[in-house]
């Protein structure tokens, strides 16, 4: 499974990842670091100045010192706030930009993947990765900029200052710092796998929800709401445990850090007392040291937020990288070949195809030639491999044996741009996008003017119903065009593809929701408008099939017949069965031919 992977490789993934995506913002990040440095120095200056007030002002009894240093402290505070705000703003800008870049990169990568990789991840997981996981990675950078950087500078600066003030007592702070760092390391190691599970759980929840939303009609029709809720409940429980453990670990960490720092604080007073007693330490210095320690404690509390963010981001970054690192299994040819002619001449040569892991091949040694301008109907039982053959022409998958050539060039040697310009498809399942009718049609050809749009709608028999929509072409379609009937959606999808004016048109059973009259008018229009276009279609309709110039029969992935209707009726048993199975066929010449063949 994609979720199981050893955690050892996590750290380099994160650094490499950050390096790659933060590179464009190098200078701004350097600026942020500089600003954070200034603001931290300011914070650290305060206890030092306070020590001056005590040692030189109070103990010496000088009011002048007290007021003078006080004014200096006020000025430092002012500088600090200005710098800090500016650092925050810049940090916010960089992290928002990084989030944007990452989302865009993941989205782009998903678009470049082929069907197999998308199947592998699953759509819901890809959605979570694009939105939710990126958010976590982004939150991490934000905390890195505003908290982690300041915290690191603060604690290291505090330790350094402490050491310069008093070496031995300073060492005590070093020890404390190291102890807390140890705790942090332990925390990250413990939390990262938990967050991994948590994200997997979110995948699971979003998959179940997506199913419940998309399948709501079936769920309700079969009265399975309770069962669906149980499924959700299981997923909800699945993420409850890791969430709880994360919350508890955070608590443990907070308590641990508080206790450690307080113990060191006590130790500091004890040993400080000894050193003051032997005259090697000033009281003001001890108070400064306590001040530094307090600052470090504050920093450590903030580290809690960073640590949690970091563990979570580690899991998310790995999931993002998984997507970014996947390569499309169907890839662009290194040197695309240009076909010399543009005929739309298709050769399918000894094509084999099988899904990985499945023993039974979907297609076996299929041979087929479609001449330019010819209309060929693929006929065969459900699951005989008709759609698969079309998918291979489109290179949604690559053949596992043999070759498919268009105008003499192997489809694997054509650039994807070229191939999709040549070949247009109307897929089996209709999908429209949210947006207006016009925007949906422009998906086929962004440059098409209204005259062309209406032409395509006319051919697709969609002219009248689009014209009757309240705003015509500018009528917005609800999600996936749900406001339209299945047949209306299908016709829009056909119009969308027609706008591409492909040399080869693949129609994958895309008349299924049309009534007979509409379908036959549509076929007539296609024939009239697309003479010269090679058409490869699959259909369950007798009319569509009989109309074709040639009929190719597939049976369980093998070629079972190739010819005209009358010949196939005579020679091809499978075809005969298909035709006979259509009750309507009894009143057509088909039946007579069958009878004749039997005579």
């Amino acid at each position: 499974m994609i979720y199981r992977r050893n955690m050892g490789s996590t750290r380099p993934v994160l650094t490499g990842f950050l390096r790659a995506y933060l590179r464009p913002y190098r200078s701004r990040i350097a600026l942020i670091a500089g600003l954070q440095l200034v603001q931290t120095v300011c914070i650290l200056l305060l206890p030092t100045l306070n020590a001056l007030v005590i040692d030189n002002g109070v103990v010496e009894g000088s009011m002048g010192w007290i007021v003078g240093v006080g004014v200096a402290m006020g000025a430092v505070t002012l500088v600090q706030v200005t710098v800090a705000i500016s650092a925050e703003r810049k940090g916010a800008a960089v992290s928002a930009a990084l989030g944007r870049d990452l989302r865009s990169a993941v989205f782009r990568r998903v678009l470049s993947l082929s069907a197999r990789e998308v199947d592998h991840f699953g759509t819901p997981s890809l959605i979570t990765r694009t939105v939710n996981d990126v958010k976590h990675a982004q939150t991490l950078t934000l905390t890195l900029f505003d908290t982690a950087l300041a915290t690191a500078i603060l604690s290291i600066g505090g330790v350094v200052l402490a050491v310069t003030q008093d070496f031995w007592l300073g060492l005590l702070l070093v020890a404390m710092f190291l102890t807390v760092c140890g705790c942090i390391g332990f925390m990250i190691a413990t939390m990262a796998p938990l967050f991994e599970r948590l994200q997997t759980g979110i995948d699971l929840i979003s998959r179940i929800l997506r199913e419940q939303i998309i399948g709501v009609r079936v769920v309700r029709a079969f009265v399975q709401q309770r069962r669906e809720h149980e499924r959700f409940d299981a997923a909800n429980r699945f993420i409850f445990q890791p969430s709880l453990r994360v919350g508890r670990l955070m608590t443990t960490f907070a308590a641990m850090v508080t206790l450690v720092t307080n113990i060191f604080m006590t130790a500091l007073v004890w040993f400080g007392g000894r050193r003051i007693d032997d005259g090697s330490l000033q009281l003001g210095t001890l108070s400064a040291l306590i001040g530094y320690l307090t600052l470090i404690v504050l920093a450590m509390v903030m580290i809690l937020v960073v640590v949690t963010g970091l563990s979570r981001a580690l899991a998310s970054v790995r999931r993002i990288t998984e997507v970014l690192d996947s390569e499309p299994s169907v890839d662009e040819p290194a040197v695309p070949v240009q076909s010399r002619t543009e005929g739309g001449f298709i050769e399918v040569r000894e094509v084999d195809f099988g899904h990985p892991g499945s023993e039974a091949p979907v297609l076996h040694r299929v041979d087929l030639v479609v001449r330019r301008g010819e209309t060929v109907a693929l006929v065969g039982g459900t699951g005989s491999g008709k759609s698969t053959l079309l998918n291979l022409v489109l290179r949604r998958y690559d053949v596992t044996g043999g070759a498919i050539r268009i105008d003499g060039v192997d489809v694997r040697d054509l650039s994807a741009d070229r191939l999709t310009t040549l070949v247009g498809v109307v897929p089996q399942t209709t999908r429209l996008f949210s947006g207006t009718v016009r925007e949906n049609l422009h998906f086929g050809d962004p440059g098409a003017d209204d005259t062309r749009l209406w032409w395509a709608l006319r051919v697709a028999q969609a002219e009248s119903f689009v014209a009757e929509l309240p705003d015509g072409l500018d009528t917005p379609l609800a999600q996936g065009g749900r406001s339209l009937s299945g047949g209306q959606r299908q016709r829009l999808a056909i119009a969308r593809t027609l706008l591409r004016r492909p040399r080869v048109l693949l129609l994958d059973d895309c008349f299924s929701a049309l009534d007979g009259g509409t379908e036959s008018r549509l076929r007539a229009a296609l024939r009239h408008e697309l003479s010269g276009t090679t058409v490869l279609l699959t259909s369950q309709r007798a009319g569509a099939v009989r109309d074709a110039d040639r009929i190719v029969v597939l049976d369980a992935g093998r070629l079972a017949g190739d010819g005209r209707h009358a010949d196939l009726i005579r020679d091809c048993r499978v075809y005969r069965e298909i035709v006979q199975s259509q009750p309507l066929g009894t009143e057509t010449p088909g039946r007579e031919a069958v009878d004749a063949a039997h005579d």
Partner: protein
Amino acid sequence: MPPTTKGDTARRLLALFRPQRAALIGAVVLALLSTAASLLGPYLLGLATDLIAAGMVGRTLDPGASKQDVLARLREQGDGTLANVFSTMDLVPGEGVDFTKLGFVILASLAVFVIGGLCLWLQGRVVALAVQKALFELRDRVDRKLARLPLGYYDRTPPGEVLSRVTSDVDNLQQTLQLTVGQTLNMIFAIVSALIVMLVLSPTLALLVLITVPMAGALWFLIGKRAGLRFAAQWAANGAITSRVEEVYSAHHLVRGFRREQRVQARFDAENEALADTERQAQALTGLIEPSTRFITDFSYVLVAVFGAARVAAGSMSIGEVLAFTQYAGQFTRPMVVLAGVAGQMQSGLASAERVFELLDAEEQNPDPATPIRPEVVRGRIDFDRVAFRYVPDVPLIRQLSLSVAPGSMVAIVGPTGAGKTTLGNLLMRFYEVDEGRILLDGADIAAMSRDELRSQIRLVPQEPWLFAGTVAENIAYGCPGASREEVVAAARATGVDRFVRALPEGYDTVLDDDRTTLSAGERQLITLARAFLGQSAVLILDEATSSVDTRTEAYVQEAMSTLRAGRTSFVIAHRLSTVRSADIILVLDRGDIVEWGTHDQLLAYGGLYTELYAGSLAPADS
């Protein structure tokens, strides 16, 4: 929808914790204890510092003299300030630091710290559990809500929008609560108790620290209000981008097949940019809170340092007291800085909470009647009694439809696309409610029945096949989870599923889901058909149930269907008129009205729309 305010949202969020009241009270007690410890600790350390200071000074003084002598001598030398300082100390001239006393105080403070840490830890665990339980409950409620939303909600709202509310927003809420609930409690206690101690130690200095409160309060109010709006915009943009991503990824093959990656990417990038904008703005605004709060508290630190020093110089406070006061001032102001940081996250969390509550508040389908009726005997008689229905208020679809269907008969519904055929099924299943008139099942008004009762009498094969992530067998047994493998296989055989399932790598245990491409559209349809075969029902609705299935398989399935249909009332919506010829009655629908009805032969003889449709489906295109 009633307008909600931040206050309402926060209150509702708190209400989620009501079942955990006992635990939270425990948490409050523990928080009090740990706060007490965090106050007592510095006090003890202050005592320790005083001991050290006394020792430091005492060691340098003449061992023979008493404390009074030393002070008198200093005053004589005109060193009044120093005398004042020394007067506050518990010093014995000639004696160094009293390590026995110091050791005792140090041990005591250690004990206090350990107890405090323990309380903090326990409190955190209690809070973590309460937070997770509350979130569990929230997710649970959302999922239950989804089951009560009317179907129209789903037809209107992009799935991605709902998804983002249940995943991203709840996730954000979780982070917010985890970070804030525990911390806020401790911080508020710390602030209050530190304030009390400061007031006791030195009311004047305490006032200096107190002026920070109204300043910080005003600041938070001003920034928080704006930040809330920005976060609301941010999470709305997040929902929009989720919808976009969901839509595009679901249509991945189309985008690839049309080479529209760039166009889709461009649209995505525009929305992405908008999201980044809102994120930047929200963050830049909340980013103000912490530094400016820190400024206010630092400013008070400076004031305390200066005035404290002056008071020590005046002899009215000891150094140890000032140091302790500085500590308490820190304990007062530091939590304010942390709270300021938390406030930003809280704004974001509240914005998310509001989106979740908005979903929870969405209008629900009418609840089932309190005492639902049920037909005495369900035989499958259906009456449509002057039914009117419209999806869009101004566009009537079905105006006045009346129809009686005898039990066991087969009704075919045909008509041009968009005529409202599917709508009849929607109304019968009560996916949508009729606007006027009523529908009766064996004499019982279906609106007075419980939906589940009604639906369990009806088997539906919807237009678009839907499979969930699970095995083939589980998908077939969807309506009857208890079905045995034999029953599943029998249903699969009857619907032609068995043939292709045997070719799958793991047969009936092959895992499917709605997006995978292993099965063709026809095969998926057959599986949903097999689903309808399992279990008993009086009514059957087949909405284009075999449109993607090849005719040979269909003929085979038809035969099985006629067994299935025997004794059941069936509604068959079809375009392929071959499917409907044997129907007892064929209804021809056009624009929501029944324009013709009768048997196949009667309708052909009549020569109306049906004849036209029939001719169209038969005739070669060029005729």
